[in-house]
């Protein structure tokens, strides 16, 4: 990679003392600028843990994480990344506009500058008409769009997404996939996207990283050579199905030979 990586995860291991669980083992991962990478794997493979280690919300037991050449701690303090969770994690007592403004408040932006940026973000996610609504007055899909707008409001170089569309119905999910790609192309952020949907991972990403469980490790990666911008037709292209099959095979191979019992013996 000629350009400097946005995220560099080096030999990261995470064990939880309770129950002596090895959530992650020897993870190496690099994300190039503007890259869209999905992490996929069965539940318990540590993909969400890996995302939190990158965000310095969980400390790794061994190994190092650098973001934009800085330590993960420094990057968090500098506001280098935005994060989106599976549930939108909006604050009921704040209006939509105030929810989006939250990270800007934390960064100490002036009121005028905040208001301007919030207006831009509302425009981006097409929720201008709902600025003064409270989160519970919106549908699940709209709430998640607010959450994305909030994560992008301060233009972080890196966007961490933990199954952001996992709780939505298929139709809403596919529409938001398209919207997310459009936003990504406009903002030029690097995205680490956790999902358990194979088609979603292939549709969105430039690279799909497949993880296997207990202990969580990287089983392999599939480069997705479908051209951007991707459209509704992309999902119907023969190449799309080939790649979906490739990811599925990789998931299945790893799932078969890595039985939890074997792993326990190996440790």
């Amino acid at each position: 990679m000629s350009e400097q990586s946005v995220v560099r995860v080096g030999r990261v291991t995470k064990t939880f003392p309770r129950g002596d669980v090895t959530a992650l083992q020897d993870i190496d991962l690099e994300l190039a600028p503007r890259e869209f990478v999905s992490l996929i794997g069965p539940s318990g493979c540590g993909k969400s843990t890996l995302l939190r280690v990158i965000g310095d919300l969980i400390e790794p037991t061994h190994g190092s994480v650098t973001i934009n050449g800085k330590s993960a701690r420094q990057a968090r303090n500098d506001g280098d990344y935005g994060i989106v969770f599976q549930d939108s994690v909006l604050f009921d007592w704040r209006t939509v506009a105030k929810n989006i403004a939250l990270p800007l408040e934390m960064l100490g932006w002036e009121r005028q500058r905040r208001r301007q940026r919030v207006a831009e973000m509302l425009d981006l996610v097409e929720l201008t008409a709902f600025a003064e609504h409270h989160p519970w007055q919106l549908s699940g899909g709209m709430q998640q769009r607010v959450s994305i707008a909030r994560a992008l409001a301060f233009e972080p170089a890196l966007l961490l997404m933990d199954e952001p569309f996992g709780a939505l119905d298929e139709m809403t999910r596919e529409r938001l996939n398209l919207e997310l790609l459009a936003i990504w192309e406009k903002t030029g952020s690097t995205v680490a996207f956790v999902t358990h949907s194979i088609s979603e991972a292939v549709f969105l990403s430039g690279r799909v990283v497949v993880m296997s469980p207990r202990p969580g490790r990287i089983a392999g990666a599939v480069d997705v050579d479908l051209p951007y911008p991707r459209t509704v037709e992309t999902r119907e292209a023969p190449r799309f199905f080939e790649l979906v099959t490739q990811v599925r095979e990789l998931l299945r191979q790893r799932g078969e030979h890595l039985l939890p019992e074997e792993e326990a013996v190996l440790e």
Partner: protein
Amino acid sequence: MTAKAALASLVEWLPALVVAAVVIGLWQGLIVAFHVQQFLLPKPTSIASTFWSDRHELWPAGWYTMKEALGGFAIGSGLGILAATFVSRFKTLGTALMPIFIAANAVPIIAFAPIADAWFNPFSPHSKMAIAAVLCFLPVMVNTLRGLQSARPRQIELMRSYAASELMIWRRVRIPTALPFVFTALKIASVLAMIGAIVGEYFGGATTALGVLINSDSQIFQFTKAWAGIVVASLLGMALYLAVATAERAIVRWSPQLRGS
């Protein structure tokens, strides 16, 4: 309020008003029909006329007791909120104190009324404030604590992703989450404060107090006046409750529960 909104709120209150009118009507009618003795249950009309004729004695007594209740409410609720804040901030303190608080909750605090009278001057309002404060403390403390502990872990995680300090997390997450719980507790406490003050006065107090008045009037068989005193106490208790509920509506405007949707 527009005319339409006024009409809407009248319609909302109508069933309650009708039920109240029917109950009072039945009360009056049954007493007349069965010749119930005055000392067992006076007629609503005689209570109303005493309520009016003795208003110069009843209302100052009510206000005197109300001040005791207000003082106890403020002290008890204030200490309850403070204690909850400390207990949720310092976990070890919480594990040491919570079982004791919960055990204390089972003690019938009212039984301490004569003792509070002995500790403080029984003729000063302070002894009644103490009883009211003790009654208010626990529900406020327990509810506030639950509220402070109800912040969703994801919300805290999000704040940490912004490198938020503990103080910022309190201000922007824990306190707003706790507010609906606190107001529920304050509404309970507002009623308890009035009960505490009046029960405290039953064990002695200034002759200008409502509880003393109700107690002595029943002893000299002036039941109609005792009932009028009870009406005053109820009205003041409701006023305090409504004041808290109004504050809640103003402060927790965003709550989906209060908006009814």
